[in-house]
């Protein structure tokens, strides 16, 4: 072979190597893109919606929602005990909202505001349906709930967690040794020592 032949062979090697590489990338990246269109874990039947194909059922242990930069903004998954939860995060990664199931079988929705204030709706550990607002120190300051026996009540509490306004029934369990036991149809205002300073009606001995 002369010099010209070597140049031709060398040129062919470079050109067709590049062509082969490009073809390979095109073929396999198309395959990956098609796979990416399909959900990620065990699926069953697939469905077609126009040009978009999807699977009818997707099963997983964890789904994460991420921002374009890759920051996780939400997780829908199981915790270490296998209990499901949906958790949403703010832009600094703090929990801003969560829907959880606790080990006792009760569940709740919690919304966390700036400064640590929190609102919660759900079933308490004692089985009572409850709406509660908490301050930044975690003290429940406003509670609308049913007592253990089912009696409804609305309570406003001070920073020390002491009930200062109680509308509705005050059960023996809630009253303890300090608060008066009251029927449902009652309103009581209490001082910082939990002593009633005003109540309606005056007669609290009715059932």
């Amino acid at each position: 072979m002369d010099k010209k032949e070597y140049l031709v062979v060398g040129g062919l090697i470079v050109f067709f190597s590049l062509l082969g590489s490009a073809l390979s990338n095109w073929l396999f990246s198309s395959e990956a893109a098609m796979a990416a269109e399909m959900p990620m874990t065990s699926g069953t039947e697939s469905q077609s919606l126009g040009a978009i194909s999807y699977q009818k059922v997707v099963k997983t242990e964890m789904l994460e929602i991420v921002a374009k930069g890759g920051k996780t903004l939400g997780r829908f998954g199981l915790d270490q005990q296998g209990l499901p939860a949906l958790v949403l995060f703010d832009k600094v990664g703090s929990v801003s909202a969560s829907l959880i199931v606790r080990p006792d079988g009760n569940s709740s929705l919690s919304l966390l505001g700036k400064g640590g204030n929190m609102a919660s709706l759900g079933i308490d550990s004692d089985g009572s349906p409850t709406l509660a607002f908490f301050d930044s120190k975690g003290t429940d300051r406003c509670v609308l709930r049913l007592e253990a026996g089912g009696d409804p009540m609305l309570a406003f509490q001070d920073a020390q967690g002491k009930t200062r306004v109680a509308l509705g029934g005050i059960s023996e369990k809630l009253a303890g040794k300090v608060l008066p036991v009251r029927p449902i149809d009652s309103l009581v205002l209490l001082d910082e020592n939990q002593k009633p300073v005003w109540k309606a009606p005056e007669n609290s001995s009715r059932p």
Partner: protein
Amino acid sequence: MNKKERNLMRLAVIVLSLIGGGFWGRFFTVQPARASEVGLSAGSALAPAVTDEDVLAILRTENLQLVDKEGKLRASLSASSNESSVALTLSTIKGRTCMILHGSYEGYPGLLFSGEGGTLAELSFETSGMPSLALSDAQGKIRNLLRLEPDGNALLAMQDDKRIARVLFGRVTPATAGASKELPLASLVLCGQDEKIIWKAP
């Protein structure tokens, strides 16, 4: 080397170059993550991180199910069969559904929590279209009801186990309080077991 041999060699060079280039492109360049490689099965806690390459832009399905390691259903986010709503449900370890968030049931969205003993907390819309929060006892009776009345005013009603309203706070009408004359828009009314008003303000 004659002309025939030169042509054969050129053909061999072309074929081998294509194969070589293909191998290079397949194994030595960065590929996007394959769907089967997405790190969603870690699932030991709500904490595992995934890398940027593992992210799918959109996941489309009619029914997303969270299953534990034994394959038992723990939660789902699914479209209803009549395509009118999406519901998120969470279940306890025993398999009892304890929370339902639905986009639109009979036209209204709602959030429902159910306790082990049958108690309920439900944030929803009444048939009048007004929002309400209802807390129900273990017998399913609504005992604490916070809602907007059809005229837009708020009312908190507390009922006893016989469904008699014992406390009415806010927009109290003569019909709800059993009063003989009109009450002010903002009122607090306490009623006895016989439904009669025993105290009111103002």
